[in-house]
């Protein structure tokens, strides 16, 4: 009888532990928000000022389709547009749509560049789309995006 009682007590203790443990782990998993956190929609609206960007083939976005390591994902944006004094690419923005802070780089170019290109490496927290927004000097916005599969997240 003693042994039976002991086992009963053990199982009860285990059950209570199972009930308690999820709440504890959830509390630990809560991630803090970064001070620069901004969603993709808000970031896009802040740059375009409410205008809808046009999906264009002039913007060539080069990103690997599968990134094994999300901490280092090479991104290259090239724009097929002349860089004259009165008609040039004003800026190139790179967004990671599902990162806490979706903004990566805002590059402001000038006619002295000769060629509109921006290349860098970004961190991606999870599988998501990478978007490149381009502003021309006449005020129009062009956009291109591609999804990237991330096997190991790179943030936090």
């Amino acid at each position, binding site marked *: 009888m003693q042994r039976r009682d002991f086992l009963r007590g053990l199982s009860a203790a285990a059950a209570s532990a199972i009930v308690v443990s999820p709440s504890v782990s959830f509390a630990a998993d809560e991630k803090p928000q970064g001070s620069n956190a901004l969603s993709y929609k808000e970031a896009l609206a802040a740059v375009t000022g409410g205008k809808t960007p046009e999906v264009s083939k002039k913007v060539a976005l080069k990103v690997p389709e599968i990134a094994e390591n999300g901490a280092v994902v090479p991104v290259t944006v090239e724009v097929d547009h002349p860089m004259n004094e009165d008609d040039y690419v004003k800026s190139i923005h790179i967004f990671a749509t599902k*990162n806490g802070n979706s903004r990566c780089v805002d590059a*402001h170019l000038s006619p002295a560049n000769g060629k509109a290109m921006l290349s860098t490496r970004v961190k991606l927290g999870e599988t998501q789309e990478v978007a490149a927004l381009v502003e021309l000097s006449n005020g129009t916005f062009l956009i291109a995006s591609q999804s990237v599969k991330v096997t190991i997240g790179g943030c936090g």
Partner: protein
Amino acid sequence: MSKRKTLIKVKPNKFKNGDIVKVSFMVMHPMETGLRKDKKTGKYIPAEYIKNVKFEYNGKVFTNMNVWETLSVNPVLTTYMKVDGEGTIKVTFTDNEGTVEESSQKIKPKG
């Protein structure tokens, strides 16, 4: 804080006046988001990232970048530039704490 290691690369090696060359800027920087925990102490590592990178050629700004903490560790930023005679490329970068550092590279077109 000690000065960070930087590197400015111009490609290709040989170029003429009026050519368009690739300018890469690399900096050894941790780019901490402030959301990562130290495994030993369990405390958050304070944020430390670059905010702004400015490319100048003979005192004239040709590319100005606003950068966020979502860039990878030791970031590399590449852009193009039109060569217009002998001169220096100066890159100035600003930290999230307002520390400004700069590095420069002299270029000499041939022919």
